[in-house]
Every structure is written in C-alpha cells, then in structure tokens.
C-alpha cells in the first residue's frame, strides 16, 4: 500500500459503515411502514367499500382484475367465486389475519413468558413439571386441538386464537426459560438478590426485561407462523367461518380456481407474502440489532 492509498480507503470504510448502519435501520423501518400500511388498509378499505363478506353478486363472479361489476363499481383486483370485490376481501382478510396473529401472540406470549419465567426462576420440580408439559404439548398435533375447539365451541376467530395460543405458548416458554437460566447467574441478578428483592421483584423487574429482546424476535417469526397455521386450518376445514374471511381462507378457497381464476388465490397470497416478508425482515433485523456480536458490523 502506498502513502496515497489511505484517502479512498477511508471513504470506502465509511461508506460501507454507513451502508451497514443504514441497512439495519432500513430493515426495521421499511417493514414497519409496510405493516403499518397493511394495518391501515385493513381497517379503512373494508369500511370504504362497505364490504360484506356474505354479499353475493352472482352476475359478477370470477371476474379478472379491473372488471366493471354488475353493481357498477370497478373491481380493481377482480372478484371472487361469489362476486365479492377481491380487494375489499383481501383487506378484510388481512384484518382477520392480523387480529388472529396479534391476539395469539399476546396470549401465548404472556402465558409462555410467564411460565418460562416461573420455570427458570424457581427451577426444581416446578421447572421439571412445566417442561414436561411443554414436551407433551410439543409432541401433540395441534390439529387435534383445532378440531376439538371447532367442534365444541364452533368455528370462529376467537376459537382459532385459543387453539393457536395453546399450541404456541411452548415456544415462548422455552425461549424465556433458557434466557432466564442464562440471566439467573448473572451478577446483576445476584445483586438484586443481595438487596433483599423478593421473587416478584426478581422475576418481573430483573429477569423479565432481560428476556424481552429474544422474545420479541421470536414473536416476529411466530407471527408469520401463526398466520400460516391459521391458513392451513382453513384448508382442513376448521379455520375461520364463512363470513369472516382471513387471508388464509381466501387463498384456500381460491386454490380451487387457480387454473381458471388465478387472482382469487394469488393476490391475497401476494399480500400474505408481503406481510410475512415484512415480519421476517423485521425479525431478522431485530435479531441483528439485539445480537451484540453483529452490532458493530
């Protein structure tokens, strides 16, 4: 390297650094914006369209994107098998899917993290018992639960949330527990003990905040998983009922028309993919952000 070399090298380093830094922020901001747009769309569009999932317009069935419907409007994304406007339906479906995802994550996250905290903090037989229950849950096909709940309580969004929550708490419990086990012997937890802190203080003020970063990362990836599982429940006939279209159920219903009316299943599929990508990228970016080893890169 010659003496004149440093200048471009500095610039290259800085540029690379700036790009990497911008990368992480972009990878957090862009997905959040995309998710935000979909959330807003999911709230606003069905209202604007006065969308009624049960309103059949039989003369405008299976119309491709851009068709003028018998009611006079333009179906920008086409119509489905009963003549509903697909755009409105996709947005209403996104609303249901997002609701299912968020509610499931909140419920299973709260329960799982709580149990993981308990197991990790108290250890001993409580830990052993909770972890065996977790094993049982993991070894247990969730479709069984789905059918149980669908038959006992009927089909409904609430019931799907119950099923998915029951089958998802384990992930959170395991993450929280392993995190607690790692934190438990950290000096700052011992320090809290030496202050005379009780179990409540230790669990919720000291250990819980330390668990949140990996839990949030897991939550973003689980979110995608939950929405997809909901879709396969539709496929198995125990998903959301007629009249509450989710992205998954719309895609499923459309698969029967894939060879004749591709848009019914493909367009909501694209929205689902965008949503999942947003969450996936967000999850990865958060993981990078929370991982001190990758932080400086």
């Amino acid at each position, binding site marked *: 390297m010659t003496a004149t070399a440093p200048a471009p090298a500095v610039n290259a380093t800085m540029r690379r650094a700036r790009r990497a830094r911008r990368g992480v922020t972009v990878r957090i901001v862009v997905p959040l914006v995309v998710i935000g747009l979909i959330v807003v769309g999911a709230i606003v569009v069905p209202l604007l369209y006065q969308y009624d999932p049960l309103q059949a317009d039989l003369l405008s069935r299976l119309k491709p994107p851009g068709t003028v419907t018998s009611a006079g409007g333009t179906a920008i994304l086409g119509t489905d098998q009963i003549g509903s406007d697909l755009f409105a339906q996709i947005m209403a479906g996104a609303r249901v899917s997002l609701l299912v995802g968020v509610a499931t994550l909140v419920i299973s996250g709260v329960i799982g993290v709580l149990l993981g905290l308990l197991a990790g903090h108290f*250890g*001993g*037989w409580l*830990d*052993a018992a909770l972890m065996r229950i977790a094993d049982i849950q993991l070894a247990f096909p969730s479709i069984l639960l789905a059918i149980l709940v669908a038959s006992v309580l009927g089909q409904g969004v609430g019931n799907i949330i119950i099923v998915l929550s029951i089958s998802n708490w384990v992930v959170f419990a395991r993450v929280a527990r392993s995190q607690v086990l790692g934190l438990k012997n*950290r*000096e*700052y937890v*011992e*320090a*809290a*003990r*030496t*202050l*005379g*802190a*009780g179990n409540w*203080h230790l669990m919720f*003020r*000291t250990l819980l*905040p*330390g668990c949140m970063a990996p839990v949030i990362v897991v939550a973003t990836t689980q979110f995608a998983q939950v929405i997809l599982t909901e879709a396969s429940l539709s496929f198995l006939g125990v998903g959301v009922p007629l009249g509450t279209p989710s992205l998954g159920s719309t895609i499923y219903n459309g698969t029967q028309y894939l060879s004749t009316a591709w848009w019914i299943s493909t367009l909501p599929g694209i929205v689902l993919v965008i949503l999942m990508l947003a969450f996936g990228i967000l999850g990865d970016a958060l993981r990078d952000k929370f991982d001190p080893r990758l932080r400086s890169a």
Partner: protein
Amino acid sequence: MAETESAPLLRVAHLKVAYPIRSSLLQRQIGANVAVSDVTFDINPGETVGLVGESGSGKSTVARAVIGLVKPDDGVIEFEGRNITGYSRKQLKSVRRDMQMVFQDPYASLNPRLTVRDLIAEGWRVHRDIVPRDQWTAEVKKLMDRVGLNPDYSDRYPHQFSGGQRQRIGIARALALRPKVIICDEPVSALDVSVQAQVLNLLDDLQEELGLAYLFISHDLSVVEHLCDRVLVLHHGHVVEQGNAREIFEHPQHEYTRALLAAVPVVRPWLERAHQGRHPTGEPPAQVGQK
C-alpha cells in the same frame, strides 16, 4: 483499629459450603462439591478483612454464604450477635440492609435495562422505609456525587459509562441501603490500574467517613496489602493462614502463602533486593497452582 474487646460486627465460624452435584434430568442430588470448609473469621466495625487465594479457592463462595446467596452446610454466621445462619429469605431482608455487596464485574453486575437512578434506587423499592419515594431523585444525586459520578448522568444506562464509573455505580447501589459492612468480591480486578486506584481510594474514603467495614476479596496481593487490616489466605477451600496483613506479607508462614507471594510480578524487578526481605523464601512457586 478496633480490637477484639468489642463484639465483632460479623462473625463467621466453621463455615462449610458444598455445592450439590445434581443429575441433569431428575435434579436429584448425586454428590457434593465442597467449595469451602471450616472457615472462621470476624470482622469488627470499621475494619477491612482481606480474603486472598487463587481462582476457585472458594473466595466468592465465602462471600455468597455470608450475604446469604448460598446456604451454608455447616457453621455459624452471626451478624451483630444475631445468628443469621438459618434465616429465610424474608428474615434475611432486614440483615441485607446492613450488609451489602459490590461485585467483581462492573459490566455484568448492573442490569443493562435500568437507568443509574433506577439501579441505585432499586434497594429502596425493596426496602420501602429507607427513603420516601419523592426524595429518591435527590438522594440518588447525593449518592452519585458521593461516589464521584456526575449527578447529571442519573438518566443514563450503564453501558454509557466506563468500567470505573460502573463500579462506582455498584458502590453507590450498595451504599443506598446504608449498610454497616460491604462485601467486595474482587471489585477492582476487572479495572485498569489507573481506575483501580480511583476506586480503591473511594472505598478508603467511604470507610473513613461512614465507618464501614469491608470483607475485601481479591487475588491481587498488592491491592490486599494496600487496603486490608487483616488477611485470610484461602487454599482449596481452607484457610491456610490468617492474621495481621503486614505480618503475613512480611513473614508468610504457610508454604502456599509464600508461593502466592512469590508469583506476584514485581513492577521493578531490578529493585529485587528490597523484596528479598519481604519474601524470605522467594523461590519459584513450583506446581502449586496446578490441579
């Protein structure tokens, strides 16, 4: 220095701690690893007792047993004449106001998610009668000032401080409960010499002002020699030598103590002659440290 006439603040007698070895699955105890046994010493008010020994000799275990983080398997721990050995977590709570701890690692011992203010005030959250809530902020600032931290930084997080500053936060946290004795488990081992000196001075000043007693743990003999009135030398969980600090450093009796002293690198080895006087048997430590 206080002498033996007055009752000791803290008395540890025949302390034995064994860590259970558990089976990985059923958590059944399948054995025990005796970390320390038959450790006996006193700490008088305002006194500094040093605990030295190589890694794994059981120094931290003694500290943890004294402050109640591990249950002793045998022996008695008395604080101000009260036998606190079998105290439950609840009962210990009152003792902990008087006995606090400063940890080795200033990075790991501070909760990264709390601000300095919350870290220092955490004890008041647990012991609600020490400082009324509305005075927390003011008290925190006073403490920060006391340990030489800029009180304006009370809303910062630990990672925004240097190692020496963090250790000051740890000390302020211990002081917040207004203890009579502070157990310092290698408080300066992770610090650079320049900062180490600042912290040692601080500990010294606090002792003078507040009449604190210290149980000071270190593997750095020069630090112990500098700070302590009395010293215990721990080897494989046993006290092999105990007594006045100057006495032990000048005339080590036990072979292990001598080996330990001889292994300390000397800053100016070309002044070796001066040291020869202190280490009459200054031979290489042979293979003592090795297991």
